[in-house]
């Protein structure tokens, strides 16, 4: 019986797929996706050519997906500038390996070296990207990270308790008042040992609001909202007239817990949850919350101490919709909606029903009217379900198959990705008519227009973020790269300009014009502001101190030597901490540090920074260390030795630099 259902669904998909191919056949100008004629090709090449020494117009921040990181590219060239380590350790930068950053990856479960990062989201002021911070969610062990765009470093990670699969996150409000975190997987509330079959009664779905300090950017959980254990899939906050609301899609309103691919796809409609967070603030102020135990980590990195600290918090404030009327409403939306996107005016809320061919567009004005009229279909756990006919503004009909996400330009068009039919479809906001379509290679997930989810899109380019590349690139064994595709959307027709591979799996991405980022750049850290407890701010402060089995080496780097570069008196079994301060005060002069046999990564120390490598020598001998980052004409000479003696040896602790006078 179950098999029959699957076959029927597949047949349905196949039929739709065939139909769509017919519908869209003539709309696909070149099936192979290579720009057709020579003239077309050279025009596309011209548009993405950034001459040597010139700079790209936009930054693109792409999620690394299962790499756990963020990659930074330029547009229109697609060139990769940097990989920012966020949720996964990065041996290249020592992130999660050096003593300073280990705390960034601490959680209530202890140190976690990996996660799955999905949705980068730029901070906004008045609904426009402001270039201050980039937020991104960790899906597996729920967390939100904040990256400082003056240093391009992860500076904060907040864990989300009572959650599992932090997918509908972080999606900021229009002045970065909050970033949100909705759980994709229902989990027992509170977390406990219960039969999985008790899902409907014991499991819950929590939506979390994380407050962002407008000055420091510091994050902490403001409140959580307890909802039925649906799968909250994606979100976007309202803007303009709908500022003060957040919209979360849901699927599995069937509340199934096994073979979801079929079981959670039965209902004709699931819900978009509309949350009035300004109302939530009122209820909080009135004290209508439950303070419940919940362990979560708040990890912060300081650019003064160059060190992260992890604090475990024990409580959160939970709001329950039954006790807080007007806090949450459900908007029925067809076929397991995936992305929910709000147009630049804030009026239209687009539900991308991933198992259908249509886009459902709700009207914020109509929603407010329906709420005022109390025209409810039913009420679920205190949450009124509005009537579909009351809130729907229009439907983009049979636009493609498997709509996932929509972004907007500044000329009144929406652009929707269709996973199954593998294309981007452009449609007119208001008339809902399809005006153009372009194939993607292959199976597009998210798409991105710089500012395309804000009040002020910069609609010159569109980036398709594809899940599958198959034959598009030189083959690299069983695992192939994921890829982005760049389209020019400035004209009536979308024009494919460029393919380029991406890091890990790109989910969402954000784009911003470079002039909003460049003026914020920090070139180096001022040495006199270095407040690291183990820094040495000049060669005169370098020394080696023993405390029992612990040895602390206060070391400095400057072109082109370490101070000290010879150390004796280390013993097998010691824990040797190399605290390396980079004395350079110029842009682009990092020094590296690595020592033979260390069960550890390297250090990559930025000018003015102090980083610490732990080395536990296991056998006697003399071990070389060296600078790993080509720093100058005398980089190869930037090396030294540590002598390791037996545990019971009486070799005195001494250190020096240069043969003339040992520092002592």
């Amino acid at each position, binding site marked *: 019986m179950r098999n029959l259902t699957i076959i029927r669904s597949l047949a349905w998909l196949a039929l739709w797929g065939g139909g769509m191919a017919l519908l869209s056949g003539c709309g696909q100008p070149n099936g192979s996706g290579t720009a057709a004629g020579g003239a077309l090709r050279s025009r596309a090449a011209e548009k993405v050519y950034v001459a040597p020494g010139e700079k790209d117009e936009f930054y693109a921040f792409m999620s690394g997906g299962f790499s756990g990181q963020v990659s930074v590219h330029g547009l229109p060239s697609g060139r990769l500038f940097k990989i920012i380590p966020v949720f996964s350790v990065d041996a290249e930068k020592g992130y999660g390996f050096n003593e300073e950053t280990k705390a960034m990856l601490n959680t209530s479960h202890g140190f976690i070296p990996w996660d799955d990062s999905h949705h980068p989201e730029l901070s906004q002021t008045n609904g426009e990207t402001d270039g201050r911070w980039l937020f991104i969610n960790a899906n597996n062990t729920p967390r939100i990270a904040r990256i400082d765009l003056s240093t391009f470093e992860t500076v904060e990670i907040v864990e989300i308790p009572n959650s599992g699969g932090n997918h509908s996150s972080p999606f900021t409000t229009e002045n970065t008042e909050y970033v949100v975190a909705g759980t994709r997987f229902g989990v027992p509330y509170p977390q406990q040992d219960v039969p999985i079959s008790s899902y409907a009664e014991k499991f819950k779905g929590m939506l979390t609001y994380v407050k962002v300090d407008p000055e420091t950017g510091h994050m902490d959980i403001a409140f959580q909202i307890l909802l039925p254990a649906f799968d909250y899939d994606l979100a976007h906050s309202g803007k303009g007239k709908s500022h003060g609301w957040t919209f979360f899609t849901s699927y599995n309103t069937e509340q199934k817990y096994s073979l979801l691919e079929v079981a959670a796809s039965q209902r004709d409609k699931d819900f978009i949850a509309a949350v009035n967070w300004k109302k939530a603030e009122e209820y909080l102020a009135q004290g209508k919350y439950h303070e419940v135990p919940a362990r979560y980590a708040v990890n912060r990195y300081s650019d003064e101490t160059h060190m992260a600290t992890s604090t475990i918090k024990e409580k959160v404030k939970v709001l329950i919709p039954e006790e807080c009327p007007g806090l949450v409403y459900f908007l029925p939306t067809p076929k397991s909606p995936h992305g929910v996107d709000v147009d630049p005016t804030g009026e239209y809320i687009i539900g991308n029903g991933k198992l259908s061919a249509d886009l459902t567009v709700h009207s914020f004005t109509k929603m407010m009217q329906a709420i005022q009229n109390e025209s409810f279909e039913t009420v679920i756990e205190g949450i009124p379900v509005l009537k579909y006919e009351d809130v729907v503004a229009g439907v983009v009909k049979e636009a493609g198959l498997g709509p996932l996400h929509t972004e907007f330009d500044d000329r009144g068009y929406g652009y929707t990705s269709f996973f199954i039919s593998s294309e981007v479809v452009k449609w007119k906001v208001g008339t809902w008519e399809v005006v153009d379509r372009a194939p993607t290679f292959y199976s597009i997930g998210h798409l991105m227009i710089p500012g395309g989810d804000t009040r002020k899109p910069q609609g010159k380019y569109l980036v398709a973020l594809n899940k599958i590349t198959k034959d598009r690139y030189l083959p690299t064994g069983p695992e192939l790269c994921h890829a982005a595709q760049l389209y020019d959307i400035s004209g009536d027709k979308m024009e494919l300009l460029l393919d380029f591979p991406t890091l890990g799996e790109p989910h969402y991405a954000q784009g911003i014009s470079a002039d909003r980022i460049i003026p914020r750049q920090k070139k180096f850290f001022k040495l006199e502001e270095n407040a690291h407890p183990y820094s040495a701010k000049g060669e005169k402060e370098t020394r080696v101190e023993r405390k029992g089995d612990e040895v602390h080496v206060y070391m400095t780097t400057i072109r082109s030597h370490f101070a000290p570069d010879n150390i004796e008196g280390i013993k097998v079994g010691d824990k040797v901490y190399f605290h390396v301060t980079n004395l*350079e*005060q*110029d842009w682009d002069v990092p020094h590296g540090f690595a020592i033979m046999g260390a069960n550890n990564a390297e250090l990559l120390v930025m000018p003015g920074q102090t980083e610490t490598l732990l080395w536990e020598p296991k056998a006697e001998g003399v071990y070389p260390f060296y600078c790993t980052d080509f720093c*100058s*004409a005398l980089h190869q*000479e930037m090396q030294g030795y540590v002598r390791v003696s037996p545990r019971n040896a009486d070799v005195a602790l001494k250190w020096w630099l240069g043969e003339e006078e040992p520092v002592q």
Partner: protein
Amino acid sequence: MKRLPQVLMLLAALLLVSLFVWPMWRITLVAPQYPSGVTMYIYINKIGGEHESTLQNINILNHYVGMKPIEPEAIPELRYFPWVVWSMIALGLLAAALNRRWAFFAWASLMLVLAAAGIYDFYLWEYDYGHNLSPNAPIKIPGASYQPPLIGTKAILNFVATSMPHISGYLVGIAILLAWVAWWLKGKIEADEKVVDRAVQPDLRMQSIA
């Protein structure tokens, strides 16, 4: 018009205060790796750069070829030149107060001598830094020296060095010029007064005869 020389002399003396506000000289080094250049500023009492760390960065570059580090504490001129300047400001004010032609001449001449001596001293330091190289330099090029130009542009290894007066340097030049103009004007006015005297005297004689 009659007071102009005195005003100019006063202005010349006061212009020297600019030495304590702006640099008098600048040296800019440009190389492929330093597209926007590294600029060092020389003040009457300190050596600075466009950033606090400029001097450190120049010293790091210089050490490859064995040049000794530029350490402002080790340059005594930076300590006593300010006193010379304050003295010249005082003398300038005195000259203005005296409002005598010989005083303007003396001050302007002394300034010329001091400026020439200062520039010569600067040249000697440049010569010392450029020629007095460590025998242990990592990079040794036989016969090479690294003295920056006194004024103008010169290629030094991978760098192009440009040395030019800067704001207060130009202002001191203007101060000296003003003092000379004051001296010249003063002379012209005095000469005119004598002519007027002579023209007036016959009348007086005629009156006395009458």
